[in-house]
């Protein structure tokens, strides 16, 4: 196995921790193909113990009530890195469970359905424990083949008495082109979206999938989240802007035009008068009545039937829209979630 010594000193480590300190030398035990003394094993153990508690505090269980995954908090405001197949969509609601069982509401931001990267934001306003992220693939500090790493995750779902589960391993495969890492930390269902750390407690990967063989455990390299596209725009910024990137397979792009509101309208002077309401449809359920005149949706004026049809064509199932109506002189406002037709 060749050792690559990258002396380009391009970037010193940049992360989200201001004033976080890291040694500039790579850890000794990572410089050898294998530890050659018990002292080095003890050094690996000591490094793990140094960072374990702190990184466990930032590792969270993510759930929507039906399934479980894991994520890791990467900013003190509560930004969470996880896997695209955990959030499976943009602007969806989740709960995040901390190590001590405390729950917080969260909302998914953008995702990359091809690389399995996703962001989530805890909506509660408070300061959260967070970890530092390896965001560049080519630096002196970069993860290399054979590096010792540890994974954390809520294997099998949240279990307060157990806590998140740590596993020690080494990087067994690296693929810079696809920005993936493979380790021999044994992952299992529930770990998805959870963190892979190097022995300095820096986030280097997010768990994605496993193979049949025990040492086939795949992680999205953390630097994938920051990859610039051909226009130089960093993926991170697009994820923060809640963009849905890619065509799968880790998440399915919501189909536009599938959203159904359940009203029939006729054009009147000030807007669209509702002439019929589908009884099972969301508009009816929220309280819209026949006779109401629709003035605007999401602040956009609705004067013609075509305007309404065009507007709905761009919407997707599950999307929430804000209706403003005139009911015999009184202004009424409703938020309606579009359903499958």
């Amino acid at each position, binding site marked *: 196995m060749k050792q690559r010594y990258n002396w380009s000193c391009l970037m010193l480590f940049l992360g989200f921790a201001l004033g976080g300190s890291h040694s500039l030398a790579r850890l000794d035990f990572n410089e050898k193909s294998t530890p050659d003394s018990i002292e080095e094993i*003890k050094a690996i153990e000591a490094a793990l113990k140094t960072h374990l508690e702190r990184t466990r505090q930032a590792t969270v269980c993510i759930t929507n009530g039906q399934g479980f995954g894991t994520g890791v908090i990467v900013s003190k405001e509560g930004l969470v890195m996880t896997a695209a197949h955990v959030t499976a969509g943009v602007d969806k609601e989740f709960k995040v469970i901390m190590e001590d069982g405390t729950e917080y509401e969260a909302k998914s931001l953008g995702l990359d359905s091809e690389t399995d990267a996703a962001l989530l934001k805890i909506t509660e306003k408070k300061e959260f424990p967070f970890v530092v992220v390896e965001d560049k693939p080519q630096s002196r500090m970069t993860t290399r083949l054979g590096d010792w790493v540890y994974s954390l995750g809520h294997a*099998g779902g949240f279990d307060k008495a157990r806590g998140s589960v740590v596993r020690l391993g080494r990087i067994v495969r690296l693929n810079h082109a696809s920005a993936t890492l493979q380790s021999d930390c044994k992952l299992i269902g529930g770990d998805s979206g959870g963190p892979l750390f190097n022995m300095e407690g820096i986030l280097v990967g997010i768990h994605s999938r496993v193979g049949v063989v025990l040492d086939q455990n795949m992680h999205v390299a953390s630097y994938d989240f920051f990859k610039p596209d051909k226009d130089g725009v960093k993926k991170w910024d697009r994820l923060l802007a809640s963009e849905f990137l890619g065509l799968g397979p880790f998440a399915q792009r919501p189909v536009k035009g599938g959203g159904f509101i359940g009203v029939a309208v006729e054009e009147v002077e000030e807007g669209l008068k509702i002439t019929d309401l589908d009884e099972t449809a969301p508009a009816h359920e929220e309280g819209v009545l026949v006779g109401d005149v629709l003035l605007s949706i999401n602040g956009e004026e609705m004067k013609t039937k075509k305007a309404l049809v065009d507007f709905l064509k761009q919407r997707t199932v599950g999307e929430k829209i804000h209706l403003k109506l005139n009911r015999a002189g009184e202004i009424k406002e409703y938020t309606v979630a579009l359903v499958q037709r």
Partner: protein
Amino acid sequence: MKGIFITCSVCAGLTVSGLGQESLDSNLRINGKRTLEVFSPQQEVIQNISALVYRGYKRVAYGVIMSEDGYILTKASELEGRSVLAEASGEESEIKPLPPLTIRIGDGVLYEDVKVVKVDARWDIALLKVEASGLTPVQFVEDPEPSHGSVVIANGASSRHLRRIKMGVVSAHTRKITGPTLVVMGVGLEEKDGKLFIKSVTKDGAANEAGLRAEDQIIQADETPVAKRDELIEVLMLKNPGDELKVKYIRGDKKASCVVRVMARPIANGAAPVNRNDSMSGRFSRRRDSFPRVMQVDVSMDDRSCGGPLINLSGQCVGLVIARANRAETFAVPAEELKEVYKNLMENK
């Protein structure tokens, strides 16, 4: 979101050659041969203090050597050997006897006369005895339990002569593992108006034999007053098959008591996967829950490699490997509890 995430796909799609793709030699992986060479002192300890337990030609467990003269602790529920049991039950009406248990210790010394002295069903630990002398018994850790992240060593692949080892770390909090009771009374229960009633009594069950009937109200189990199903289960969790359970009950307007000899709950043969995680987990243990207290490690064992010692880097025993729960989790009975179990087994043999 359906079920638990992590899509399971075979990673064979990764090509070996290609830009930016590198692969670590298997000898250098965490449990690769070269990586493990550094543990020769720990390997020597495992070589001396762990036994190989066979049922016929198949190894069914490892064991922990507790005394110089051949008392050994191992995992009880795998001693029959799953595939061996399947072979023995056969298709003929005549049930074939199981091949004998044998044990190998040290560099391959064979012990053909193995006695199963006693079993602690609650902990799933069996006390075995071979006629031996001068064996190296295990040394237990004196310090408090190893903390999260501590390196531990367990049995790895083994031949008759050589015990290989595997390394891992303590990976979660030591805790109780809930699960079904190991013993059953043979009753259906019903809670009504804050009281516990027997709804039904199994025909050949222990409760029936003791004289209990449907509509009896259970008010006490041994010394514990009970009014809820959970309270009765707490008492049952402490019982081994064949133990006596004193039951006080009310029938009509009369109070009475009886003794129920509890029976073993049948453990499912073959441990079929019950969920997706099980399907990713290879061969996990048949009995992997209902433990009063376990330490958790990430060492990958399988159904035939439990029962042996877990040691720290100083060669001291921190536990007995008791179950392979799934792909990511292995349980061990901690040293303190193991010593207690041994003491009880020895006192009551």
